[in-house]
């Protein structure tokens, strides 16, 4: 387990005065201080880690956000920003001496601008609400993380969220034109706007994906696109993962950029089919879902090309969707892969590394060997187009030692991703979860450079403490301020949490959210 930051006792002792001061900034119904209600904010979708904050403020305006941050700046208090709390890496898990700023009340769409092809929205607007707001005119907002019915656009900026369609349409950072940002000292600034690129340093680029460590995004301006006139999907079975991998490489080499290109291995295929009964080929060792979108002429043409490539690479089955209902059925299994796997096991742990595509067969073989060594089953789903792998490790938190084994297995997988030329996280973020693995990918100097960027915005390291940067590193850097608490922290002072990492969606938080 990764340890949560040890709180400052002096701040805990001042809690009554702090709560009183917060009450002067936000209305009474926007302040949460009693233990029962605080429990709703103690974790996010990485439920292994739980910690009640000092208090939760739910500002209704950007001015209130600014006033809260000014107060916290004056008092030296930590801040944890929170959107919908759907992070899979513990990005919104509080610290005991921190104020959580919940941004759900900033939920208005401020402008729909078809002339400049953008939408201006407050940070608490959900991802899907943006697409809904422009759907009548045939537009959509492209990044579509699986939690899009719930996750907020502000959280998407913090995590640089992707989605199954990011192979063709890019991540949040590629679709974001501007933000209003409240700096840790409470100053309200604007980065970008309705124009493209920066006239000076690209601060918007550095804030995107900064996991709540540099400030609070209160408003976004995002690019919207005209919805493609048609979309169809292919379901292709293979007898080997090598065959499926070679087919993916051939599709890419042919210059085809599918809207989605997903792979599942046999355990994932079986779990999904048992759950949704959509006709996945159970004899296949690997399944590809290839989605093509665009004008009907293009989609039909490319469907033919991809089918040919599938045959050439030894596909054991190949089926094209003939209707929108069938296309959605093809996706239903993939989209329910996480909860489906959750039915096989009391708990599962979802990993998120990225590898060069060519390494897929080798990595899958190594994961199978690790699975035997650790005595834990694993199912693999894979954003095959961009090399983003989601192994789901099955375990039972009630069996002594299994949680620790699952975490050790997961860490081995991520180290393997780095070893083959990939990275620790493709889309879920570092958060708490992968913080202590950062030195495996980055040298001390690499991390020091990043920490200096952090200090440019947040010199006292009050924003989202305990996230992204490994604690030993923090210890060395901030020793002058936190020698004792840091020593506690690295001594493993965290409480043993209830629940377990990435607990099966059926049993854990957001059971109704699809995850892929």
């Amino acid at each position, binding site marked *: 387990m990764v340890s949560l930051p040890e709180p400052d006792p002096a701040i805990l002792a001042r809690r009554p005065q702090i709560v009183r001061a917060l009450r002067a900034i936000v209305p009474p119904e926007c302040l949460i201080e009693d233990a029962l209600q605080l429990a709703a904010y103690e974790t996010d979708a990485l439920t292994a880690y739980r910690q009640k904050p000092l208090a939760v403020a739910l500002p209704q305006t950007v001015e209130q956000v600014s006033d809260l941050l000014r107060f916290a700046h004056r008092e030296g208090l930590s801040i944890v920003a929170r959107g919908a709390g759907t992070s899979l890496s513990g990005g919104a898990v509080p610290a005991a001496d921190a104020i959580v700023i919940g941004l759900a009340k900033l939920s208005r769409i401020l402008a729909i601008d078809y002339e400049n092809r953008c939408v201006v929205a407050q940070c608490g607007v959900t991802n899907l609400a943006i697409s809904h707001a422009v759907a009548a005119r045939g537009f959509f907002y492209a990044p579509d993380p699986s939690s899009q019915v719930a996750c907020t656009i502000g959280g998407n900026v913090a995590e640089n969220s992707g989605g199954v369609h990011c192979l063709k349409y890019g991540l949040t950072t590629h679709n974001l034109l501007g933000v209003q940002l409240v*700096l840790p000292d409470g100053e309200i*600034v604007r*980065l970008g706007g309705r*124009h493209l690129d920066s006239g000076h*340093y*690209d601060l918007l680029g550095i804030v995107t994906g900064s996991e709540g460590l540099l400030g609070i995004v209160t408003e976004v301006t995002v690019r919207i696109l005209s919805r493609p006139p048609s979309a169809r999907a292919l379901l292709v079975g293979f007898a080997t993962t090598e065959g499926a991998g070679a087919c993916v490489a051939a599709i890419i080499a042919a210059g085809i950029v599918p809207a989605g290109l997903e792979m599942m291995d046999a355990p994932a295929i079986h779990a999904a089919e048992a759950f949704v009964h959509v006709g996945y080929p159970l004899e296949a060792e690997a399944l590809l879902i290839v989605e093509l979108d665009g004008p009907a002429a293009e989609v039909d043409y490319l469907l033919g090309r991809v089918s040919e490539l599938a045959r050439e690479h030894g596909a054991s089955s190949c089926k094209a969707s003939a209707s929108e209902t069938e296309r959605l059925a093809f996706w239903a299994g993939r989209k329910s892969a996480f909860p489906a796997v959750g039915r096989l096991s009391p708990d599962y742990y979802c990993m998120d590394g990225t590898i060069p595509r060519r390494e897929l067969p080798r990595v899958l073989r190594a994961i199978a060997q690790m699975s035997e060594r650790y005595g834990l089953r694993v199912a693999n789903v894979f954003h095959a187009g961009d090399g983003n792998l989601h192994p789901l490790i099955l375990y039972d938190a009630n069996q002594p030692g299994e949680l620790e084994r699952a975490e050790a297995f997961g860490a081995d997988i991520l180290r393997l991703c780095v070893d083959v030329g990939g990275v620790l996280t493709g889309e879920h973020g570092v958060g708490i979860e992968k913080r202590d693995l950062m030195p495996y990918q980055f040298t001390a100097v690499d991390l020091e450079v990043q920490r200096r*960027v952090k200090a*440019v915005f947040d010199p006292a390291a009050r924003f989202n403490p305990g996230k992204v940067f490994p604690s030993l590193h923090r210890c060395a850097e901030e020793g002058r301020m936190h020698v004792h608490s840091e020593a506690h922290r690295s001594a493993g002072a965290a409480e043993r949490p209830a629940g377990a990492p990435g607990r099966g969606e059926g049993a854990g938080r957001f059971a109704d959210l699809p995850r892929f």
Partner: protein
Amino acid sequence: MLRPRDEADVAELIAASTCALEPVAGGSKRGIGRPVEAERLDLSALSGIVDYEPAELVLTARAATPLEALRQALGAHSQRLAFEPPDFTRLLAGAGEPTIGGVLAANHSGPRRITAGAARDHFLGFRAVSGRGERFKAGGRVVKNVTGYDLPKLLAGSWGTLAVLTEVTVRVHPAPEHERTLLLTGLAPAAAVRAMTDALGSACEVSAAAFLPGRGVGLRLEGFVPSVRARAAALLALLGEPDGEWLLGEDSRRFWSAVGAVEPLTAHPIVWRLSVPPGDATGVLERLAPEDYLLDWGGGLIWIGASEADAQRVRGALRGGHATLVKAPREVRAATAVFQPPSGPLAAVTARLKAAFDPSGRLNPGRLS
């Protein structure tokens, strides 16, 4: 002049340097920005492709690798840099060859920027040496990566003021099977912007939209033949132009490389580059009444040719966006804020960022001011 052979040399030279340094690779963009009084750090030895596997759609090269070398390597596999790096050599009447590191350090993107993204969006990772003389890396060699801060975005467009890039990894894309450009002539500026807005807001997937006064509006379609055919018909129907004039193949390519290179404005001593909300293009043109101009990015990029810099007037005409003085005589650049100055608290953030990477101000001091 200092001539490092490799990254270790770069680090040693920066760490040991007692004076300011101007990192130069090909040198083709030395004429952009405030003139720098510094010793030249010639990076031209840091050249060559390190790794390129076409099926992975990524390429790693040392920073001073000429763009032309990249183009040839990519072309052999029918791939390309989708952000369409523009060539300003003629515009700036400069010598030297554009390099991949230079293009990224300037974040220069061509007409396809509106649909394919900017140079920064294709910049996946790097190795570099900071102004402190430290060797470090950031990003990665895969497309999907959220591990740590996105420092490639920060270094893109930082003009060598934060760190010296030594090796870069970029995303590459398959070149399209076919391209063609619809040319609409006889349009006034407002009607031209309207046509570009309609086209870009449609499902026709127009990959570039520009307006050259005297020539007309160009709208480019790229992709597989059946797709381009279908979209061409849809585009003509959308714009109510039953018989549009099409530039095909090489004619289309020449049109867009001229737009990217700002060729119509090369004769002017002063050239401004304005990034604005596309809907503001007409308003900005009315307020500025420029001697000469062209519009790219559907109106979101305005190039202005003039005989006087007049920065206050140019920036005063903007209602959002930024203006860069891309071309001007040295003495004018020395007296003008070439890049849009950050305002309010952002000026302080910008200064602290510079200090975080380069506390003693060794790298390109003043160039971005």
